[in-house]
């Protein structure tokens, strides 16, 4: 076979694989965002709590098991989060971007993550879903970041020297959502970059408004507070 055709075939396969990996990442972000809807609303109520100096009482907490917990409302002040994490010995790069936008994906050397076939991604089989989630949880990025319950848990033991915890956070101004009026409430994306990290170049994110159908994906719309 002519090598140009061979190379073209390899590249087309690469594009398909990348598209699948991206769809998976977007879907996971949406599910994670929807799952904490109720708690995110509660956290918003807590924001007017101010300490004597007139600044929000930030609490980047280090837990007994060595993990670090970040509350959703803390992402509104990226510089402070970076400072607080630095005090705990963690190099972080935090961006707060507007709904409908995100950071361009070329911010540095990062793990490609697990890849799956189209059939696996579309599957409703709980065994397949379990396998996909386990593969994500066991990937380098999945080990370093856990989401849920209105907070992000960082596990520094899975971050190597020279790596930066890159976190991108987007939040909808309107924090109400439901099957009648579906919208993403917030979106968190966390991954590790090895070596230098490029600053966030904000680009459009059309997927922000692409919501799963509540009839076919009821799991994306859990009851508030779950």
């Amino acid at each position: 076979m002519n090598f140009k055709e061979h190379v073209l075939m390899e590249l087309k396969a690469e594009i398909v694989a990348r598209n699948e990996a991206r769809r998976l990442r977007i879907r996971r972000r949406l599910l994670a965002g929807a799952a904490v809807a109720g708690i995110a609303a509660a956290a918003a109520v807590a924001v007017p709590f101010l300490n004597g100096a007139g600044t929000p009482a930030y609490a980047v907490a280090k837990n007994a098991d060595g993990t670090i917990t970040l509350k959703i409302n803390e992402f509104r002040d990226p510089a402070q989060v970076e400072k607080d994490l630095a005090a705990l010995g963690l190099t972080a790069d935090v961006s707060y971007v507007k709904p409908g936008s995100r950071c361009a994906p070329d911010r540095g050397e990062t793990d490609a993550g697990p890849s799956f076939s189209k059939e696996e991604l579309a599957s409703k089989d709980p065994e397949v879903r379990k396998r996909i989630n386990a593969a994500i949880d066991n990937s380098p990025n999945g080990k370093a970041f856990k989401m849920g319950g209105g907070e992000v848990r960082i596990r520094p033991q899975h971050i190597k020297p020279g790596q930066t915890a890159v976190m991108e956070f987007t939040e909808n101004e309107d924090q109400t959502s439901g099957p009648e009026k579906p919208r993403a409430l917030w979106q968190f994306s966390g991954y590790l970059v090895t070596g230098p990290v490029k600053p966030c170049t904000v680009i459009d994110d059309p997927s922000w408004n692409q919501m799963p159908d509540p009839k076919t994906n009821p799991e994306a719309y859990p009851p508030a507070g779950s």
Partner: protein
Amino acid sequence: MRRRQADIATDVEAFEVFYRRHVDAITSFLARRVDDPHTVADLVAEVFVAVLDSAHTYRPGLGSEIAWLYGVARNTLSAERRRAFKETRLTDRLGGRRPLDSDDVAELEERIDAESVARRALQAMAGLPDGDRAMLELVVIDQLTVSEAATALGIRQGAARARLHRARHTLRNVPGIAPFVLEGMR
């Protein structure tokens, strides 16, 4: 336009059109710089993978598609040279070679032969400072316009002209090179 360029990284058909439009130019670009058929074939693949990674960096207002693509190809080639240097020091790299049939090898060798004059000219330029040499390469060897070469290198047109002038001035008295650098090659 920017939309269309971004699509080549996600739309298989858009990518195929882009690939077929430029694969010969990129193969020649590489054959002017590398004289081994297998390495040229591997680098063609690497350049187009880099295109997938950086499709969003293309800005139509700043120059032609080919200028942008040559910029990507230059970066790929210098990354490959850094890597090759590191790897030959660490291990002997044997794997990762793409199988080529005899027609492929013959076609690539023909292409490499056809570019031998260009490769000799590039060798003569080797002593120039990096920035000046890069500019001269793109204009004289790869036949880009000054503004396209500026796009490929990500520099301003004024700086590009200054580099080109300096490079031509330095090479003016090298025997056998003067016709190339003063008039262009073809």
